């Protein structure tokens, strides 16, 4: 056989193979699920939509950077961060937060020094340096954005609660 018939032959076999394929085109890949795909989404985070609907995501906002310390809702609350922290590196190599908030640096930076709890380990032992469990600041402290909360929040602080509890006239300091 002459060699230049070879490609033609190849194509012919290929065509035959395709034609002989018993599988119909457009067969569904998997059986349809037995639950409705368009069930309404759980209320709250995606109000109104269903799982398969896509929304345009809300625009991103900048971190609030007003440098005004915010009220805490209760004494043990980790205060939220009143300034931007973009690009602040906190890892094994260094801790940018401590460059301003450590005992030694806080005077120069005029930043509030981290409180004694940050030097205390879980046995209640006060250490010479920041306790390992307090090293990663953003575990507890977060910056804020000026946005409408996604979820309604009915939190009442202790002052409001006590207002209802106490007999009129008593004046307790908190």
């Amino acid at each position, binding site marked *: 056989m002459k060699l230049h018939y070879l490609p033609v032959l190849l194509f012919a076999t290929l065509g035959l193979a395709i034609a002989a394929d018993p599988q119909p085109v457009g067969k569904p890949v998997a059986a349809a699920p037995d639950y409705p795909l368009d069930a309404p989404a759980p209320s709250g985070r995606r109000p109104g939509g269903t799982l398969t609907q896509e929304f345009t995501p809300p625009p991103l906002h900048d971190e609030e*950077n*007003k*440098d005004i310390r915010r009220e805490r809702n209760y004494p043990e609350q980790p205060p939220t961060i009143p300034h931007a922290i973009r*690009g602040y*590196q906190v890892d094994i*190599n*260094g801790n*940018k937060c*401590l460059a301003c908030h450590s005992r030694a640096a806080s005077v120069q*930076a005029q930043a509030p020094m981290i409180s004694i709890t940050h030097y205390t380990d879980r046995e209640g032992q006060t250490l010479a340096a920041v306790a390992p469990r307090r090293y990663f600041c953003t575990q507890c402290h977060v910056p804020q954005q000026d946005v409408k909360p996604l979820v309604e929040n009915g939190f009442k602080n202790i002052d409001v609660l006590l207002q209802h509890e106490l007999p009129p006239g008593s004046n307790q300091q908190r």
Partner: protein
Amino acid sequence: MKALIAFLKRYWVVLRRPSVHYSLGTLTLGGFIAGIFFWGGFNTALEATNTEAFCISCHEMSSNVYVEIKDTIHYSNRSGVRATCPDCHVPHKWTDKIARKMQASKEVWGKIFGTISTRDKFLAMRRELAEHEWARLKANDSLECRNCHAFDYMDFTRQSPRAAQFHSTALANGEATCIDCHKGIAHRLPDMRGVPGW
């Protein structure tokens, strides 16, 4: 006047006297032109090494520092103005530029002979490399930063109170320069133990 012409004529004769194959004049002129070419070529070659594309053409840079700069403000921001590697790392003055290039060739040497051939080796060297840059920027009062960020045109009322507080004190009175406070502005930092302010 005549004496001058006579002098020039004599000089011309000297210049025209064949050296072996070419006249001295041709040689000087040729040398001058060749000089222009070499100078231009040198500077063009220098300019070619002065682009970000060149800096990151070796994988040490592209897979270490370049990926890191990508999520910083100097790579992508609101206004789309960005700083490239040479903006921060190559002095604008010619002599300083050459000096920095020769220093950088040491790092290229490091690449060729494998001193910085892996991520681990790079990280091990990082503190030393960073310290070179800190020392350079400290010595020139953060000149490369100031090429873009001019202190005189900083509007403190437009800055965050924290920034204005620092800039109007330590920076304004010359106690500190940009790099004292803004280390790690474009890259991840090395082990910062013992670095003042950390």
